[in-house]
């Protein structure tokens, strides 16, 4: 009995051990390497070692094992038509030698991994997914501070950056010390941890990753944060408003461009030798105070709440003025004779915005203080622009108001 048991257990143990070794010998990459080497002639094989290939990038503290499977990435003469054996397209590797940059610093993914899904970062608990297709442009900004110089290669990134200003995102969001603090700082949104957006994932279908989340948020801001109505709350708790980020009605192309730009926003921790800092733009000149005021209005992101050209209409729950951020078309009518009062409002802001119903919470959007950000000249120009806005109103309407 004991002898039989002994034999059986020993045999089973030996078997399991062999299975373990076999499994270890046949990791995912082995298949690809064999497949690739099979397509080569004897002479070509020289110089291609079997086993895990890795690039140790000293300057970036990275170890990338991507070339274990992507064997022709750095050898264009051996490139095949299908993945993972294609050669790296373009001249990018000449400009960014693999020894100095590695792969993952641009493409994302998990450089240390040697299994397909894990290496592409498409597994739980890996925060850097592979940046597929044009999304890879997001990585350029880590070093190229001045993205306009690489517009040819990163068109979406440049477009996204321009859109970010044009849509007035800076009015609520700060990026590296520029922009307001009404909503979250976006300086590191491109590296935002999955665990911080878990609650948002509950409100969206499809792949639960940062890229998808950004697209969703840009397309339908309120869907991810619908708030909690009072009837769903325990007694005595205050209701939670839905996200008050305005619905911008962005096109798919715009969303893609903005996603690329937002993904490019990460902590800047690359060594100085890699980085090309942005050059300071020359002081712009303006034809008139109104043009300058308009530039100020757009530059600082007033459009986000007050609308393009000050038409207003952005939703702000429980705000005194019909639950909307105020339109600026009537500024002249209200403050035409009280410019100092208007300046005061812009300088100090309105925090919080007046409530429509005193029993409900404060409106989430409010007028921030601008006194530290706007110079006196800019303020004058801005007011000139705001007063000029009322010219767009039909004459009769202005007449009625006055």
């Amino acid at each position: 009995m004991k002898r039989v048991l002994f034999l059986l257990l020993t045999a089973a143990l030996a078997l399991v051990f062999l299975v373990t070794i076999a499994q270890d010998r046949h990791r995912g990459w082995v298949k690809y390497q064999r497949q690739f080497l099979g397509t080569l002639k004897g002479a070509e094989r020289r110089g291609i070692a079997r086993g895990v290939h890795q690039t140790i990038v000293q300057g970036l503290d990275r170890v990338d094992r991507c070339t274990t499977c992507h064997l022709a990435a750095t050898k264009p003469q051996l490139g095949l038509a299908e993945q993972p054996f294609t050669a790296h397209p373009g001249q990018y590797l000449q400009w960014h030698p693999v020894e100095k940059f590695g792969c993952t610093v641009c493409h994302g993914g998990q450089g240390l991994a040697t299994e397909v899904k894990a290496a592409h970062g498409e597994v739980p608990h890996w925060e850097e997914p592979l940046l597929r297709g044009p999304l890879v442009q997001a990585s350029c900004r880590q070093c190229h501070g001045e993205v306009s110089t690489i517009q040819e290669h990163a068109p979406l990134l440049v477009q996204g950056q321009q859109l970010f200003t044009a849509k007035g995102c800076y009015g609520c969001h700060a990026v590296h010390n520029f922009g307001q603090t009404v909503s979250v700082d976006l300086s590191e949104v491109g590296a935002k941890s999955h665990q911080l957006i878990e609650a948002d994932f509950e409100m969206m279908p499809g792949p639960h990753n940062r890229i998808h989340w950004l697209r969703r948020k840009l397309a339908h801001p309120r869907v991810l944060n619908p708030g909690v109505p009072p009837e769903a709350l325990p007694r005595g708790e205050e209701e939670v408003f839905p996200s008050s980020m305005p619905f911008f009605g962005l096109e798919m192309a715009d969303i893609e461009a903005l996603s690329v730009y937002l993904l490019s926003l990460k902590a800047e921790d690359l060594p100085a030798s890699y980085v090309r800092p942005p050059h300071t733009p020359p002081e712009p000149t303006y034809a008139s105070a109104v043009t300058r005021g308009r530039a100020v209005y757009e530059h600082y992101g007033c459009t986000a709440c007050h609308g393009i050209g000050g038409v207003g209409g952005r939703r702000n729950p429980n705000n005194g003025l019909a639950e909307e951020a105020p339109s600026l078309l009537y500024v002249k009518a209200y403050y035409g004779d009280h410019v100092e009062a208007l300046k005061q409002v812009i300088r100090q802001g309105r925090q919080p915005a007046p409530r429509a119903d005193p029993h409900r919470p404060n409106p989430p959007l409010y007028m921030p203080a601008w006194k530290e950000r706007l110079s006196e000249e800019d303020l004058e120009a801005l007011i000139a622009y705001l007063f000029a806005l009322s010219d767009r109103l039909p004459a009769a309407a202005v007449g009625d108001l006055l």
Partner: protein
Amino acid sequence: MAEPQLPKPPLMTLVKKTKLWKSIFRHDFTDTPKTRIQRIFGNVFLHLHPVRVSKEAIRVSYTWGLGGLSFYLFLVLTVTGILLMFYYRPTSLLAYQDMKDLTFAVTLGGFLRNMHRWAAHLMVVVVILHMVRVFLTGAYKPPREYNWVVGVILLVMTLFLSYTGYLLPWDQLALWAVTVGAQMAANSPLLGNEGPFKLPFITTANDARFGLIGGTVINDATLIRFYVLHCVAVPFIFTFFLMVHFWRVRKDGFSKQTGEKVDVWPHLVSREFLAALLVTLILFVWSLVLQAPLEAQANLNVTPNPSKAPWYFLGLQELLVYFDPWIAGVVLPTIIVIGLMAMPYVDTNPKGVGYWAKMGWRKVGPVPIWYPVERPFAVNVFMLGTLMWFVLIFIGTYCRGPNWEWYWPGELWSHRRLTKMTLKNIPNLWGALLMGAYFALGTPLPQAIKARLSRLAGPKAPRLASLLMHAGLGMTMALAIFIPILTAPDAEYPVRSNSPTLFEALGRSTNAPVVSAMYRLVQEAGAGGYAMIGVMILATGALLGWLGVQLAKLKDRLFEQKGLIKYSLIIGLFLMMMGVIGKILLRLLFGVKYVFSLPAFNFNI
């Protein structure tokens, strides 16, 4: 050429004649009584065994080999641990990268890590089961009390080894599991910077947390500290206690000595070998099939919700719901350890050594119950404690989701769900009365007083006195729970407590099940509702009193048998254990947060 060919002696025979062979293998291997003995005491690794042992004692179903397997798992962990140390650098920049290297590049690296991880979990389980076995077979009773204490120390060290190892992968799981423990240390009474009654010289730079993790947050200092503790310091001390443990097993003799004796070689040694083989096979398959978890790299800026301690500490973490960290994390574990260590010294019942606790059937009213015949109190209390420990672990593991909210196993977690229970405190005077009455339930009625009572007021007087005492205490407790809940102003919603009626305030201020039920009674039945609530309070008091009366006989007997000191220890520990259940019920049913609270001293119960 016709030389006669001498038959050549076989090679082995020649080898066995060499000095070299003889100096290593001191005896031959034929199976004779002599060699059986020689194998045991001629071998440094086997000589911990006696030469002969009772046939009954080595039955698998007596010990299940649990003690030996604990040691074997310790060996497995040592070997896999040493191998892992070749690939591991304990700095925050490299540790996580080394985990990835183990998984993706090192030959059998992932397997090695899995095996170390699963063997550690298995060792915790096996050590606990070993302790339960020793308890249920009475193997902690004299002369083995001291070895039981050593065993408890080894259990604590097993848990600590596992805990220190938990940090080393340097992933989110590790960081936040260890943070839970570190926070508990910061909340130690006297020695913790955030604990009650902290001593005047205690700061963040010299409190218990600093001692544990070398800072206020987990960082490189913690990693190297835990690395040294895990790989060197604790195993070193562990080995010493292990030696004492084994030495005492030999010196005190095995707990079962009766019956026919057999040779340890081959009867016991073969069983041990097979058990080790079986466990190795289980570990191999386990490590092949299930990967050890590795989450994202540790990041102090991102707290996972929920962050859970390692499973064997989840019972304590679950207790954090019901108690402040200094109780759940420091006082209760200390009491558990002290209680376990004290057990062989206060349990003076000589019965039940050398066989599994005898069980019998008894009828309580119409309900048949299965109960331990020979030492009912000891077995029941121990098993209740063990059961509680595992029930709390189960709840912590499977029933707690984001914000430590209750989720049924399999229910989908939601990070948007809001806390449902509102809580309030019982004012201190009522709380002191409640706790006082509760612990006064432990008062026995000694024989001397009983005798005097029956002399003074007839033979029924002692019973009546006991009944009065327990009923009084029960009623006091019921009142001390209900009156403050009904009348005390609510700290968190002071405005709402100004509502017109008592029960209006009640219904608005907390939504605990019992309180809501009372509110609805009043709403729907008016005066009848008030009457029913009154009856409910009386019934609760009567129930508590009845429980006290049930215990009275046992208490009086224990007091007579054990004397004052042992009795106080036993009943104190027992009441504290049941008090934990009581506090859990108070919280879940009545929405009571603290029974007694001194915020100025961080002292809340």
